[in-house]
């Protein structure tokens, strides 16, 4: 336990620069891949590694790569998804800022494996500062012969560019991202066809998350089996967890998948426990979209076993008594947190970010926001609580892209696990109206 793949060298001074990165074993995987491996061998190693999409959906990366339409004679594209906008998530920005060359190295190996000659890194527009960092790193890679024509004297050529977005959560959805890269509104496309067949400019395209691609160099260097030996069961490798909220040490941590949630929250080298020695009330472990769960559920499964930081363990019990690892955006709430206010806040976020194509999402997110505002501000009634459940249920699964589900799950789970908080808001509107910003909320002492 405790092995690192991505951030091992992140503290070395000036590791951002090509020379320092190269001196610490950087770009070795590119030499190995281009000179000693066939593209299909790399895909095979990535499949063996068990690497899963680190953006949140956790789809097996190697399998995704095999979907790429290889019969088409159109150009193929690799697009790196650096649109990181899921509330609670700030790991990709950290990785790109600290180790831009690690991403570029992984993208060169991936492009070689996929037969791609043009790759784009899409970053969210708010990360303007990363545009300079990445462009500088790309320039260095060109100068040193790792990008451009005939890389390392082989037949393989690759161009790489950074493309900034302009403020839209929805562009993290891969087809919306492609629309945005084509200079359009970020409206998700209907799937199928999937991007692997009809992607950027209608050409076969692979879209992978920053962290996913950054792992490829390690897999090329040490093999899929070595990667799979890290982690636990089907949750292979490591995961960047961005921890925030009411904890002593917020920040980005690379953990080996399989450690216990309790250790992650309370150990000094990770979150370091709850701020001000308060009690833990709830956790959203994978970005705002995944179900919020109370202390007893995040620490233990329904069968009483310790909950682990793996895809499987966090999901155990389904939505009744489980949640998801998602993007690794780990948000911690202390005993004073107002779950109703937080749910209203997230609903406002999803309403704001809905692209408006699908009625259930466009209208439903707005209704949920309004109803939650009403309850949070002391104007709700008991029927509102069930109405929210009903709306969430009708959005889920009825939209083109997963934003609808992402908007529904936080509401449904908050009511499932914290219904008493909602009831309190309806029963004691006068108390609620006097609490500024929903802080300090001790309903258990009111009766």
């Amino acid at each position, binding site marked *: 336990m405790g092995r690192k793949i991505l951030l091992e060298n992140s503290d070395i001074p000036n590791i951002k620069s090509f020379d320092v990165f190269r001196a610490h074993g950087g770009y070795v995987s590119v030499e190995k891949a281009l000179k000693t491996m066939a593209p299909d061998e790399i895909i095979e190693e990535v499949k063996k590694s068990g690497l899963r999409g680190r953006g949140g959906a956790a789809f097996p990366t190697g399998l995704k790569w095999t979907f790429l339409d290889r019969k088409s004679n159109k150009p193929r594209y690799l697009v790196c998804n650096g649109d*990181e906008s899921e509330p609670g998530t700030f790991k990709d920005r950290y990785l790109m800022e600290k180790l831009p060359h690690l991403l570029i190295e992984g993208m060169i190996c991936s492009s070689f494996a996929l037969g791609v000659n043009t790759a784009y890194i899409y970053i969210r527009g708010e990360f303007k500062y990363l545009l300079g960092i990445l462009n500088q790193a790309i320039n260095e890679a060109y100068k040193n012969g790792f990008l451009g024509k005939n890389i390392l004297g082989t037949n393989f050529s690759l161009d790489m560019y950074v493309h900034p977005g302009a403020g839209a959560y929805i562009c993290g959805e891969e087809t919306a991202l492609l629309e945005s890269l084509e200079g*359009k509104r970020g409206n998700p496309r209907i799937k199928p066809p999937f991007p692997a067949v009809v992607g950027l400019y209608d050409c076969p395209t692979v879209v992978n998350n920053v962290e996913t691609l950054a792992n490829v160099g390690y897999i090329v260097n040490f093999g899929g089996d070595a990667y799979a030996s890290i982690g636990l069961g089907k949750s292979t490798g490591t995961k960047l967890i961005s921890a925030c909220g009411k904890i002593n040490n917020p920040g980005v941590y690379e953990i080996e998948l399989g450690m216990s949630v309790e250790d992650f929250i309370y150990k000094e080298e990770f979150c370091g426990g709850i701020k001000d020695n308060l009690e833990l009330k709830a956790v959203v472990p994978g970005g705002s979209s995944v179900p919020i769960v109370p202390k007893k559920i995040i620490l233990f499964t329904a069968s009483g076993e310790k909950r682990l930081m793996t895809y499987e363990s966090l999901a155990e019990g389904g939505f009744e008594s489980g949640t998801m690892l998602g993007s690794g955006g780990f948000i911690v709430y202390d005993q004073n947190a107002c779950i109703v206010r937080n749910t209203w806040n997230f609903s406002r976020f999803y309403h704001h970010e809905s*692209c408006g194509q699908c009625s259930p999402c466009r209208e439903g997110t707005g209704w949920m926001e309004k109803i939650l505002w009403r309850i949070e501000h002391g104007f709700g009634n008991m029927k509102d609580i069930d109405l929210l459940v009903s709306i969430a249920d009708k959005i889920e699964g009825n939209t083109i892209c997963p934003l609808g589900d992402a908007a529904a799950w936080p509401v449904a789970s908050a009511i499932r696990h914290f219904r008493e908080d909602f009831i309190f808001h309806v029963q004691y509107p006068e108390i609620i109206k006097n609490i500024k910003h929903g802080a300090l909320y001790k309903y258990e002492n009111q009766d």
Partner: protein
Amino acid sequence: MSGQKINHILHQKQNIPICFSETTLQKVHKIIAHYPEGKQKSALLPLLHIAQEELGGYLNADVMDYIADLLKIQSIEVYEVATFYSQYYLDPVGKYVIEVCRTGPCAICGGEDIQDYLEEKLQIKDGETTADGLFTLKTVECLGACGYAPVMQINTEFYEHLTPAKIDTILEDLRLNATNDKHLDTTWAEKYS
């Protein structure tokens, strides 16, 4: 919603001739070359960032029509994009645009108090600009810096772990900067070196 916004854009049309500087134009052509031939529309998002920054601080119809000409696309293709993304402003803004994150993780760490403090300090509400034209205050959704909450951006530069005292210093520095006419960060065009 978009229809209203597009009407708003059309009403601002003044037919004032507009052009990037020679240096910026070189960058613009370099950016267009990042995309395959015939796919120059892909450069729209980066070009709108540059235009907003260098041609008046917001996107009016004249600026957008100029970008449409540059990319050989229809004006409406620019308008529909400008009205979709939250970083493009359709109305004049102050020299410094303060964007305060109000989403979940920031909110539970005092983001709402930061917004209150700024409103009181600058005597403006969300979306308004100070009388001296120096500051515009906006609330925005998640800026992807949750571990450093509460957070705001000023002209896309991050300011983290905010407290009232820290805000006082930041605003004071900006007032000094404003008289020196110094930029906070390098420009969008300069990011493409």
